């Protein structure tokens, strides 16, 4: 039995005549880590703001943990990293996070301990007394993220959590989210498809104010492999047509499509051969082709955008 932690039904939000969200409906179950994807202006931040109670919907209903957004019952249970929100530059980040902890009901001592814990989570352990205005952009972002981890929220909404972070810190934040997803549900908005692919097991794809796709990564009878061949460093660039032709001859192959930069998507029937990936590697070796990357399944980018790209080419 599913246990929806977010339930949204027929949600509509307009700014003037522009309808940003048009009858959005979806559910997110407890324990899921969900990606919210969409182009600029697709309505991601508006949806986040509605879920956090920052905005009022024109119509439709929303429930978080069975409560209306902004309800007192959600204080301390729902946390968020809103896009572009900043801490007060006049106070130290430790003072502000302690204040937030106390607003959530913690004692002064517990709030201090909790602040030190969450600052350590985002690698800012030594910055309790640093004023928010004195931090770099990336550090401010991490301090803002730390406030979302105060207490033990059941649902954490993160709007562009790694935007503006250097690669090392972005990786650290991804690992942190991955660890914390054992204890809380996440809804994450990002333009970084690679990041969402690693973190999320469900995707909400917003386009032109509508939910275009809403699915868990499927268990299909057809399996997929993403292959990228190596070029340079002594490896000759393989002819794409020839690669496709050779791969199509493998047992169980349904379709091979070539992309840019020596990338190939292979669809096959796993029930026909158990060791398809071994056979594919043997095929590559027999033809003298070196591979750079081989991964199971379609990339999220392929899942979301390949059909759109194909439709664009055909039109």
């Amino acid at each position, binding site marked *: 039995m599913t246990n929806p932690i977010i339930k949204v039904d027929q949600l509509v939000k307009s700014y003037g005549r522009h309808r940003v969200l048009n009858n959005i409906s979806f559910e997110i179950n407890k324990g899921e880590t969900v990606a919210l994807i969409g182009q600029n202006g697709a309505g991601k931040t508006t949806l986040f*703001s509605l879920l*956090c*109670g*920052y*905005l*009022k919907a024109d119509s439709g209903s929303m429930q978080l943990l069975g409560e209306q957004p*902004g309800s*007192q019952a*959600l*204080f*301390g249970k*729902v*946390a*968020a990293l*809103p896009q*572009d*929100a*900043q*801490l*007060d530059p*006049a*106070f130290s980040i430790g*003072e502000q996070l302690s*204040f*937030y902890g*106390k*607003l*959530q*009901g913690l004692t002064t001592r517990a709030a201090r301990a909790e602040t030190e814990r969450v600052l350590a989570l985002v690698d800012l352990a030594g910055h309790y007394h640093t004023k928010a205005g004195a931090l770099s952009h990336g550090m401010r972002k991490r301090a*803002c993220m730390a*406030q979302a981890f105060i207490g033990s929220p059941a649902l954490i909404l993160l709007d562009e959590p790694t935007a503006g972070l250097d690669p090392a810190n972005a990786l650290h934040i991804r690992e942190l989210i991955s660890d914390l997803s054992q204890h809380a549900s996440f809804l994450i908005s990002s333009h970084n498809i690679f990041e969402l692919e690693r973190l999320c097991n469900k995707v909400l794809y917003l386009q032109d104010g509508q939910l275009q796709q809403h699915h868990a990564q499927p268990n299909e009878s057809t399996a997929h492999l993403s292959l990228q061949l190596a070029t340079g460093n002594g490896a000759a660039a393989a002819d794409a047509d020839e690669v496709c032709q050779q791969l199509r001859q493998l047992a169980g192959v349904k379709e091979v499509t070539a992309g840019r930069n020596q990338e190939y998507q292979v669809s096959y029937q796993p029930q026909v051969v158990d060791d398809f990936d071994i056979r594919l590697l043997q095929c590559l070796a027999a033809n003298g082709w070196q591979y750079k990357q081989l991964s199971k399944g379609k990339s999220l980018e392929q899942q979301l955008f390949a059909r759109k790209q194909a439709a664009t080419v055909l039109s």
Partner: protein
Amino acid sequence: MSMMLLLRQIRLFSQVELSRLWLTRRGLMTLAATAVVWFFLLRYAIAPASEILQEPNFQKSLTAMFGMLGLHQLLNWPAPELTLYWMLSLILLPILCLAFTANQLSGDAARGTLRFISLRSSRTAIVLGRFCGQLVVQLCLILLSLSATLIISAVRQGSISWQAIEAALLISCHLLIVLMPFTALMTVFSAWARSSRLALSLAIVSLGLVFGLLSWLIYHQPDAAFLLKYMPGAQIWQLIPAQGWQSLQLAALPLAQTAVLLLIAQQILSRRAL
């Protein structure tokens, strides 16, 4: 929202505002500016004028000129310094209050800090907490300036009487009540405006417009003059000659104005997109 949680959060917001006054650069600048203003007022206005107020001829003249208005009651304060402090504060502080309390909500809203706070606190608690915080800060400043006035009086007289301390407490209570509707007015405009500067401008323009419209209305309809009694600060002229704790009965109007203005601020912030 439960009353206990509401009160707890109001206390937390007030503590933050106190910290902002005593522990931040901006707060210390406010303290320094207040100290400088009161130094000049005490040194060059209140102290010399206190000497004049004590002269019997001046007292006779004041009673003769303003006896009908009850202003001679001003001479009944236990120290002339308190008389002058009382008159200056009643006129100056409401004006300064508008500028001083203009950034209750607008700065945090523009920066997005209110988004963090609103996930942990109701918008009602935010409005009341910030309002109470500003009152506590203003009470601190009033007590500091009153203490300085009492010290000047004590230095001149060589001692300080219990009556003077009691009078100072009465003055601080009255001033706090006088400032309540003005602070609440700025809660309204800071809940609405995108910046403290805009909030202050809107408040000044709105007060000017309302006074202008009322004056026009009263010119054409003299019966409407009673409306002036409901404006913020309307009780100040009655307060100037007031004496004793029974004068607190004049607090009903500013308290009612404050309640109405805070309700409006709460409604504005509840409907505002953060």
